[in-house]
Structure formats: C-alpha cells, structure tokens
C-alpha cells in the first residue's frame, strides 16, 4: 500500500511510453484516431478526456503532451513524438526503478517491524 503511488506512476509512464511508440508507428502507416489507439492505454485515454492522471511536474508534462498530440499533420507529429520519446523513456525507467527500490525497502521495513514485534512479544 505504501508503494501504491510509485507503482501507479510507473504504470502511467510505461503506458504513455508505449502509447508514444504506437502513435509513431500509427502515423507512419494506419493513421487511426487517437482515442481508438489509446483504448489499450487507460491512463492515456483518461488524459485525452482532460482528466489529471498525475500531479505536479509529472502532471504538467503529461498535460502538455496530450495537448500537443493530434493537432497537426503527420510529419510534424512525428517530429514532436520523437522529441518526447527520450523524456518518456527516462521517466518510465526512473519511475520503474523508484518503484522497485521503494517497494523492496518497504518490504524490508515491514519484515524488520514484524521481527521486532515478535522479539518484544517473546
């Protein structure tokens, strides 16, 4: 439960990264509409509907991203998405790392707390 936020953040950035990759492919080939493409990425779909999926700087970055996709022709979109690809990849990796680190830390803390309670009771 303590790491739920970190998990959610990692999941959202992972979805946005995958969506970005899919959109790049889509623009070069099928050109299907954004919402149809976003069906497999619930957090992207929510963001496209104007909902805030993350807060703070993360939220501002994703808001800026969703406000700029779909607004221009394929060539400029590809340039824009390629520009965001690196940032999304960094955020995805960083959030996944953070989740991994904190979740194992929380597990260790819980384990130690359990042992401490056990010792005290004994």
């Amino acid at each position, binding site marked *: 439960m303590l790491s739920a936020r970190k998990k959610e953040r990692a999941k959202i950035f992972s979805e946005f990264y995958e969506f970005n990759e899919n959109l790049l492919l889509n*623009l070069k080939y099928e*050109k*299907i*509409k*954004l*919402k149809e493409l976003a069906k497999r990425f619930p957090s992207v779909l929510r963001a*496209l509907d104007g909902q805030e999926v993350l807060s703070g700087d993360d939220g501002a970055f994703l808001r800026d991203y969703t406000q700029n*996709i*779909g*607004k*221009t*022709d*394929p060539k400029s*979109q590809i340039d824009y998405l390629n520009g965001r690809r690196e940032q999304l990849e960094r955020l995805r990796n960083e959030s996944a790392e953070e989740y991994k680190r904190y979740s194992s830390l929380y597990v260790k803390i819980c384990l130690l707390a359990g042992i401490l309670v056990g010792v005290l009771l004994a």
Partner: protein
Amino acid sequence: MEFDFLPDEIRAALNLVDGDKLTEIRLRSGQAVIVGTTEKYCYLGRKGCTDDRELAIVLDDAEIVLSAAMEGSVFAYTEQLRHSFITLDGGARIGVAGEYVTERGEITAIKNVTSLNIRIPHDIYGCSQGILENIRLPSDVIIFSRPGLGKTTLLRDIARSISSAGYNVLVCDERSEISGGGRAFDLGCRTDAVRGADKLSCFGNAIRAMRPDFILTDELYGERDRLAIECAARCGINFIASTHVCKQSDLAAFRADYYAELCAIGGEAIVYDKDFNIICHCSTVGTSGNIAVRPKKGKGEDLFGILRVQ
C-alpha cells in the same frame, strides 16, 4: 446520423428537425446556424427550424466544431483537409473554409477555420431504376448535375442494382462519401470499395487487384480523372461516374455511351446517348426511404417538394 461533435445546444435543436429532410448544416463563426432541408434553408433555433433570425442559435467558433469532428486527430484527415473537406464515418462530408496555408503553391493545411458546411448523405432504394431501364448495360455512363441534387445517392443505388444483376462492382470512393466510410451503406453483395485514393491510382491498381466488371466513382473533374476513365476503357472495364460538369461541350471530354442529367432525386432525369440525343425522360422516385428533393433554381415549375414513398 450522429452529431456528437456539435455543441449540445445545436444537437438538441437538430433533434427537432426531421432528419430525413435534413440535407445541410451550415456553421459560420459568430453567425446564426442555418440548416438546409429538402424544402428550404432556415435558421436553426432552440425549437428547430425558424425563419426568425433573432431566434437562431449563434455558433461561437467553427474551429472547435471541426476539431471535435476530427476527434482531436488532425493527422488522420490531413490529406482530405488539403482538399477543403473531411468525411466522417457514416458518409457526412464537412466542407471547410478558412485561411489556406500553402507551401510552394500547394495547399498544406487550413487554419483560422471560419465556416463549415455539413452535408448529410441519403440512401434511397430504387431511385436509379428509371435510368437503368433506359440504358443497355454493360456500357459507360456519366451522371451530371449541379451539386446537391443527389448524384451520390443515385450512384449508391446503381451500385446495388448492378451488383444484384450479377456484375462485380468496384466503387472508387475518393472522398469516402459513396460507401459512407465503411459499412454505412449497403452497396450490394458484389461490390468492393476502395476509399481515399485518387481516381487514377485507384483505377490503375484496383483493375488489376479486383477485376471488376464496372467501376463506379463520383465527381469526375479535370485531366487526371479523364485519364482514369480512359485507363478503364482501355482495359475493357465499364464505368459509371458522376460529375458537376454540366456543359455538354465540356462533358464530351469524358467519353461515355450514355449521359444522364439529374434534375433531382425524386424528380426527373434525362438520359442522352453518346451524341447527346435525348433517349428519354425518366423518374428517379425511389421504392423505399425518404426522398430528398431540392427545388431547382430559377424555374418555378420545377419545385418538386417532398415525395415520401414506402
């Protein structure tokens, strides 16, 4: 027809207009919304059609409506926008007016959109019967009339009819209007549709790929389209096409066995032979559906009104 992309107020008002008679919705930024019905043009008020401009709903921004119609996916419509329109699923076509963005003389986009013209498609079974009874198939046919009189509606019914007569039909649907962008209209069980390609590419590729007996297409215009139908003729494939070109001298550039002049769906059509001798006057009344008829300009006696048939 769904109008999810329109502002709530306009959508609610449109529910009060008879959908079968609705042919156009004209939206201009900061101006009263106007709807075209089979009878007349009127303002769109909160209670439906009105002649009182004071009661009309005023559109705030046409650009927002266009963006909603494209579902925030401009890239999916870039090619169509270069030709000043987009076609929605279901076949409704939105004409767009605004400021053209050009690069080396070519239109690349439209910005500052100020006007939209939403054209509502119709589907009328049997309306081509009169014409088809008076021509000998297989042959090349060109249907001509000014815009908005039902050429595309007629083509849909022709596709159905010749398909059910056993011919393989290929619809070259450059603007996705004939087929309605997918499965919106029944075009017959032997009909294939190629959407989104210009006629010359479509004719060249599809003749080899699909081996049609007939190619149907709409809005022939200009040299490339003439080359496309010549390509079909050289390959021994017959075509049935529509055009806005109405002058006989210009029409002759598109060589065909028959020419059919459409006065209005539900009204009259005049069938000519290849030398423009009149073969017959025939009806384009359908056997089912609601017949959209637009009054002919300039001639009082040509006001057909509405014909509803079962």
